[in-house]
């Protein structure tokens, strides 16, 4: 039996509560508030207390999908990335780099967002990148 508690930060609102995910043999089975969290000091709201319920939900996307004949079909990472890269490259070549734009996320980590905007700016040479800060 492998049981661990992993200290992390809640993914819902931006109060930034610290919480512990309880992991038993690779399954996240519960959530506890972290008393050391500077903004939550041992409290969590109802969303935070139940955050483990969506992580390993059966609906999670597990494999890349490609549209074939009108519907999305499972494929490998290599096929999906090759196809996406070729499609984006051909739009860039055919219509110019400004024909491809980017919508990022207010939910991903700083590191993921940094690499996403670097990709958009460095590969396409424009600044058509935004996210839902306006929502």
């Amino acid at each position: 039996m492998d049981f661990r508690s992993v200290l992390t930060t809640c993914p819902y609102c931006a109060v930034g509560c610290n919480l512990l995910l309880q992991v038993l043999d690779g399954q996240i089975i519960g959530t506890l508030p972290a008393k050391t969290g500077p903004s939550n000091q041992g409290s969590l709201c109802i969303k935070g207390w139940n955050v483990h319920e969506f992580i390993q939900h059966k609906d999670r996307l597990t494999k890349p999908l490609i549209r074939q004949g009108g519907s999305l079909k499972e494929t490998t990472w290599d096929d999906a990335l090759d196809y996406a890269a070729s499609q984006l490259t051909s739009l860039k070549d055919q219509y110019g780099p400004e024909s491809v734009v980017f919508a990022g996320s207010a939910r991903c980590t700083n590191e993921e967002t940094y690499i996403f905007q670097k990709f958009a700016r460095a590969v396409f040479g424009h600044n058509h990148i935004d996210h839902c800060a306006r929502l």
Partner: protein
Amino acid sequence: MAGLAAAFGSGAMTNSFAELEKANCIFAIGTNTTVAHPIASMRLMRAKANGAKLIVVDPRRTQIASLAHLHIQHRLGTDVALINGIMHIIYKNGWHNQAFIEARTENFPALMEMIDKFPPERVSEITGVPVAQLQQAAEWYSQAEASAICYVLGITQHSTGTDNVKSLANLAMICGHIGRPSTGVNPIRGQNNVQGACDMGCLPNVFPGYQYITVPENLEKFAKAWNAKLSPTPGLTMFEQIDAILEGKVKGLVVFGANPVTSYPDVNRVEKAMKALEFLLVMDIFPTPTTEFAHVVLPATSFAESDGTFSSSERRVQRVRPAIDPIPGKTNWEAIQELSTRMGYPMNFTSGEDIFNEMASLTPAFGGMTFERLNEKGLCWPCPTPDHPGTQYLHKDRFARGLGAFQSIDYRPPAEAPDAEYPLWLTTGTLFTHYLTGTMTRRCPSLHHENPVVEVEIHPEDAHRLHIQPGEEVKATSRRGSIMVKALVTERVKPGVVFIPLHFAENAANRLTNAALDPITKTPEYKVCAVSLDKVA
């Protein structure tokens, strides 16, 4: 963000959550705190227990409103008039902070001229708020030793959103309630890392750390570090992107962790844009209405599989640690890195920490941060050097832009008002159990159980007049579309106003909302539009 940036030179929460408890007066406007930020609302309650006056300004009688010493229930979209009116009273009574205005601000005469046009009687007429309430709010806010303003999307999600925020900045400056502990203008962000996404430059006009792309030195620094040719021209905002797709100028869209087909206003129009794309790449953790339009869907990792950081609303950069292996087999940054490499721009990051270190080396506000330093309690930016303790509150002796700039703002009514055909005001918002478009929270059985279906809040008088019974299925219609909703008859809303939460994709409130944009921030008017409610049977 643009509103605060214009006034102070920086768009973040000026003070920290813990300081709110020690404020002597809290002016909470357009924030349903107990629902959207329950843990932050505890700070407001503790402040009240410590003797602070709590003023809540909200068109709905929310829980926090019912706990307030003063609940100002103004008409939708009249915030600017209300705040100008409060400033008018403060100035006429000599309750303003002349020393602060002289030492720290500019452009006060223009503001004075503007607020002169907002005497209490006129403001009362526009907002529907009794004069006595305006006077009480003006006195409490201005006379307390430390007053803090809190606001959320109830202020920004208007076609006048920037004006609303600038008005709040004016109010703080006229009283000198900024640049000290337990004061300030504090936008409590709705999404876990909206602060971080802005910090990281996921915006069309700035590199990470709000380094403007239009400044040649910034452009040169990033072009050199990234070994790439970069553009000094600001890009399209998300709503301009939709316009550009519909105009045929944009053919491809890459969506990373977002669900525009529920979350953008005027969803029917967004769907048209998605259909018009030649190539749509979506990366997400669950299938969403947006993935249904995609040509390629990449499975994403959740926070529980990610190694990195989030920036909270109080600018605190905190660690996110993986509890399990990536469910899709790759982390999000690995997928983007591999896509980039395939497109001829190779990246060679080895971990989230490796990415963070490159970012910190290019971003002065984060320059003193390392994962090791963040491990304990995180750090609030600016934190420019390895021995810097981080910054609890901003604008202490000077504003980020130098002097604080008063902006004289006139009142503009909302873009759409009720008429004979659409006689009710609709406002939108959140429920205590759900988050955004519900892709996560509606899959949590404990949360779904509390709020399984979309309900429209309607005042008993309106329900009686329209012969609508509690629990009855009714059709809500605006100029843009219609949805089915269950009637929840309640006095939380005033007569003539209805409220629909935005979490339910199958009956998305945003099929009704207006895409009228704030002219500067391009924020849509989610919070106000005109609708009709009709019986089905």
